[in-house]
């Protein structure tokens, strides 16, 4: 096949591209420039869109022996990912920008462009697997559970999965580093990137305050009594315990947690841990990675964080909403996150959490 390999400048995408070549594909490496104003150098383990990263990607492509280009996706990234990140926080929800980036950029803007140019698909260094089965090409967890990225890929439609190639899903990360070294890819020892690539300082709250202001508002208990002040409700996450700065102790002395964020009144509601217990999740705007779920109650697993646990549940889909009943309660669950449904290791689909009880 003729494929585009998205190369971030990190070790995973470099090995993925090399493996695609070894499998006999005709591969062209592409680095996505996602920031119109990139930093020159990487600071630690953050981000993947510095000038240095694009240089690393180019050198990896040289070593592999494939053509290399840089595609400017800064505008698409800003509109589809950064603005969404800000507006979700402003609305009191907790977004996952990596998932949006896969949905809007890597497997949309890039894949669409690649297809129009005559390529068959896009290779990435994600830890996930695809498989041909009786229900078509399906998306599955990687064998390295600690690195599995199927969660952030759960927004891919059947059409997009069709064009996705994940060469790393059957390998453990340690072996990828070894393989990179054997292949002469000097990115073998480059640190993994964590955090959010467009917040190079790693200070999410500060970054959001710069964009959304830091209007002071009350921190209240469930009865509405003011316990303290905050500087921007959106910098909190449901379930958060640290950094509340409350001086009034709770009646029984137990710690308080963020229960609710009310963006309109700029209020943060706190309370006891028990209040965070969630048994039911409702999701909106679902994407199905295979056949859509039905109104029939089905047993499966749900995952609500990128590296969270798979929780046993019963799910169904009716009236445009995904309903998930958990076998055991879960504590602290932010709306805006994706609820991803698994059938064993197969990704069934995902929906954005809009309501919890």
């Amino acid at each position, binding site marked *: 096949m003729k494929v585009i390999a998205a190369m971030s400048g990190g070790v995973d995408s470099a090995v993925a591209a090399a493996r695609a070549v070894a499998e006999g594909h005709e591969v062209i490496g592409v680095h996505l*420039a996602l920031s119109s104003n990139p930093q020159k150098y990487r600071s630690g383990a953050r981000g993947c869109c510095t000038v240095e990263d694009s240089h690393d990607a180019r050198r990896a492509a040289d070593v592999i022996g494939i053509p290399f280009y840089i595609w*400017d996706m800064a505008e698409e990234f800003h509109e589809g990912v950064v603005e969404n990140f800000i507006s979700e926080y402003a609305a009191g929800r907790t977004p996952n920008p990596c998932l949006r980036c896969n949905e809007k950029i890597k497997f949309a*803007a890039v894949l669409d462009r690649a297809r129009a*140019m005559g390529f068959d698909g896009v290779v990435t260094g994600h830890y996930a697997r695809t498989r041909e089965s009786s229900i078509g090409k399906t998306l599955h967890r990687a064998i390295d559970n600690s690195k599995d990225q199927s969660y952030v890929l759960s927004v891919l439609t059947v059409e997009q999965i069709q064009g996705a190639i994940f060469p790393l899903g059957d390998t453990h990360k340690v072996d990828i580093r070894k393989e990179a070294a054997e292949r002469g890819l000097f990115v073998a020892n480059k640190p993994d990137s964590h955090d959010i690539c467009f917040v190079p300082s790693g200070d999410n709250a500060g970054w959001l305050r710069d964009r959304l202001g830091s209007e002071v508002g009350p921190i209240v208990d469930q009865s509405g009594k003011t316990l303290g002040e905050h500087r921007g409700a959106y910098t909190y996450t449901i379930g958060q315990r640290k950094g509340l700065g409350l001086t009034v102790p709770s009646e029984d002395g137990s710690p308080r947690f963020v229960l609710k964020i009310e963006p309109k009144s700029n209020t943060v509601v706190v309370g006891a841990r028990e209040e965070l217990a969630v048994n039911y999740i409702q999701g909106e705007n679902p994407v199905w990675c295979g056949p859509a779920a039905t109104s029939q109650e089905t047993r499966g697993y749900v995952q609500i964080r990128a590296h969270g646990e798979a929780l046993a549940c019963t799910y169904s889909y009716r009236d445009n909403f995904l309903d998930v009943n958990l076998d055991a309660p879960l504590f602290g669950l932010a709306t805006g996150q994706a609820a991803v449904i698994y059938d064993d290791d197969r990704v069934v689909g995902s929906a954005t959490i809009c309501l919890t009880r």
Partner: protein
Amino acid sequence: MSIYLDHAATTPMVAAAKRALADQMDKLGNPSSLHMYGRATRKDVEESREAIARAVACRPSEVIFTGSGTEANNTALKGLHWLRANEKRNLVVISEIEHHAIFDPAQWLADYEKAEVIKLPVLASGEIDLAFLRKLVTERGNEITVISVMHSNNETGTIQPVAEIVKIASGAQIPVHCDAVQSFGKVPLSFKDLGVTALTISAHKIGGPMGIGALILQHGLEIPALIHGGGQEREIRSGTLNTPSIAAFAAAASDAASAQAERASFVSKLREQFIAGAKAAIPDLIVNGSGEQLPGIINLTFPGTESDTLLLLFDAAGVACSTGSACSAGVHEPSHVLMAMGHSQVSAQSSLRFSLSYLNSESDVAEVIALFPSVISRARAANL
């Protein structure tokens, strides 16, 4: 297929230059040394200087070797500015379509030397607006330290009215620098006849090696240097002379000069063939730059495409071309040249430069044109 249509970026070394380079590598001697080894390489340097002087019609002593065309531009613009700048005279005049090797030193003079910089606008043809310059010199001529306008533009190939500019400037005794990197060897170029104060040329655009250029600077004019040291090159450009590259530069310059007219007429025909074929294949394309043109540069706008996509598709098909504009962090900036000519950002980013040389053939052109329909239609589909 493998067809190279990016000769304005760089072009293959000619045989004579390769030979000169190899010969020098067997020689020992710093041309500044006084012993027989030094005398021998000094002789080669001076013969090279004379050959280049013949090719550009200047005196040998007017040739100052530099490490690139970029360095020659920096030396000229900054040096001529420093020479004359004072409280009342602090205005640097360049054009909107200069190469970054003039744009950026001018910006540096603004940032670090508090110079005022005015960029001459261009007409839709791509030629600078002489009326604007005339008015500027009339009103503020006594404030101008230097005027720098290129001989021909590297993106569009449009030749500039340099003789006219010199006429306007000389009335007010303003020195004129001219970046002739793209014109040298391609069209007749005479330092003497142009009457400019300084002129930049570079070896690798004419079949010489990369990393060697020259500033032609009027006899007797001493400008402050950028690089200080051993006092070579009229104390304007210190540093041990790069004898192998200088010898190869001279060989390439002689080669280019000897065949200039013949090659220009051949390449002009290829250019005509290319443009006619392109227009027939893509009727709505726009040819950028009119008036007097270099023989080898063709700049085309393909509405509804993105140049990055076009480049990838042509590259994949074995055709090397470019946008001709600068990259920032690997991403093409919309061309300031095309924008100055009235393009929008979008249409500037739908443009490509094909630059031909005498090494190309009619069949190269025909093969590339045959790719146009499929490449352009895929690029249009990919422009989502």
